[in-house]
């Protein structure tokens, strides 16, 4: 069993980097995810179908295409990439931040779907009742809507995290496969399978991948049950 836990420094880095990238991707995409879900669930405006399609695009496009589009827009010479680099010093290309961006974009439709469903399930009469008690729309959202959609929020966040842990195509197309910088677990596993004698390393990382994903799933179940019990939604 020793060979299983005896990871090389490079392998450890891949594990750490994957967790970092997935966590950042999940946290950063939560606020826009909630906003877009809210707009799609409640908004009535021209172009809603278009926005919905745009959000879902990464789900239906080949990941390589998404990665290439990111490279065109957020690469050094891309319009958004050049602007962000000049104005804020934020660089995506060939950095771990680029991997986080790619993972966030790939997980975004999953997150928005989960949150949107939970917003649509909220009884708007509760919000009206809070309004008659003196709460303005912002307070209503913070004290009624947000707590009521918490299970959906957790589910969306975990889905986004899990997607980020497994993201491969868009990441490798956008930011390549640089050890210690952009080499996440799937990229490292892929690299192992390309070299002779890499089977043991690939298997080790595969098992770690399974453990991390299972842990995330269990954590979300426990959290959701805890929240559900607090709300007495039987």
């Amino acid at each position: 069993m020793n060979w299983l836990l005896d990871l090389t420094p490079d392998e450890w880095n891949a594990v750490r980097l994957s967790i970092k990238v997935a966590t950042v991707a999940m946290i950063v995409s939560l606020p826009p995810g909630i906003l877009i879900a809210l707009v799609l669930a409640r908004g009535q405006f021209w172009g809603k179908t278009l926005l919905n399609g745009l959000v879902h695009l990464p789900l239906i496009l080949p990941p390589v295409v998404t990665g290439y589009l990111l490279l065109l827009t957020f690469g050094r010479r891309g319009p958004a990439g050049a602007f962000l680099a000049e104005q804020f010093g934020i660089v995506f290309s060939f950095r771990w931040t680029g991997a986080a961006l790619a993972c966030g974009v790939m997980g975004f439709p999953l997150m928005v779907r989960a949150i949107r469903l939970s917003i649509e399930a909220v009884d708007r009469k509760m919000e009206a009742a809070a309004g008659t008690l003196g709460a303005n729309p912002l307070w209503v959202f913070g004290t009624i809507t947000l707590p009521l959609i918490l299970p959906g929020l957790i589910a969306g966040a975990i889905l986004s995290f899990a997607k980020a842990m497994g993201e491969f195509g868009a990441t490798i197309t956008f930011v390549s496969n640089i050890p210690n910088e952009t080499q996440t677990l799937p990229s490292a596993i892929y690299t192992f399978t390309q070299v002779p004698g890499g089977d043991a390393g690939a298997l080790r990382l595969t098992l770690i991948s399974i453990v991390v994903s299972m842990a995330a799933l269990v954590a979300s179940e426990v959290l959701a049950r805890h929240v559900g019990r607090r709300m007495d939604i039987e």
Partner: protein
Amino acid sequence: MTVFVDIGHRLGDFGIDARFESAGRLTALFGPSGSGKTTLINLIAGLIRPDRGRIAVDGRVLVDTDAGLFVPKHKRRIGMVFQDARLFPHMSVAANLRYGRWFTPAAERYADINAVVDLLGIGALLERRPAKLSGGEKQRVAIGRALLASPKLLLMDEPLASLDEARKAEILPYIERLRDETKIPIVYVSHSIAEVARLASDVVVLAQGKVAASGPTGAIMQRLDLLPAEERGEGGGVLDTVVLRHDEAFGMTVLGSAAGEIRVPRLVMPAGAPVRVRIRARDVMIATERPIGLSALNILPGTIVAMEPGEGAVVEVGIDCNGATVLARITGQSRQALKLRLGRKVFAVVKTVSFDSANTGVGLPIEADG
């Protein structure tokens, strides 16, 4: 404290065009389902923006479409109790109660949490979650939550409609206390004559989105033509009385009214307490002479002041008993046999056992009435 509403609004096929003004302690919006009661109360609460009109509470204009004025619901300081309670499921009862209080400016908080908890008898529920409450308990907490926002007006949208008879009987006394012990005017939506007659000081009758009549409860309840056909038998004279004494030997209470003494089954109220009774028109018999050898105990002398044919064989007769009007439903055949006509002196006969908890309740204190 007055509530003024003059509103026009369309919702699909349904249109509402209503105008009323009330200064009553508890104004009932009464009418069959689909008459626009709930729409009207939602307009007052600010949950719906009207097409046209003006709403003012105690001189403060909340809506004036001509001036482009619409005060949003969270700035109106109007409490609302919904038919379905709408307690927040993710908060304890105590947190639900405190919710509105938190948004009330400190200087305007007049409601005291302990007093409200006592008034509604919800002290034992504070730590519980809404899902663990019975329907009646939920409704009491919802009333408390609205009160603790220290509202200037309390709206109640059929708060008893989703409860069974036992739960209704549990809540009614609390609403009576609310009406009598707090200074907040109440607008109460109901389609039940029993509730309106028992609770309301004033009634606005709605039919198909329009105000059919409005006025003090006693006057409105005598107009059987305003009541929906299936409820017409429930209508009748509403008398404000006081407890004179209790007759322990026979388990009865004697009430004093303008019409004379009325004997009802024993009430748990002290002598001097105001009691409002509704004498259902179908429970009243008419005699042309004071009956002898009759089991009915309440025999009220009076004069026939109205006689209207009802549907079918029915004739509705209004009898003025020294200023209090009692209604009777009799058949056309009886009317002919007794030769009843306007101005004739008769006796209204009511059995003691026709009074029950549905038509006998805590009355408004007499001196504050009218």
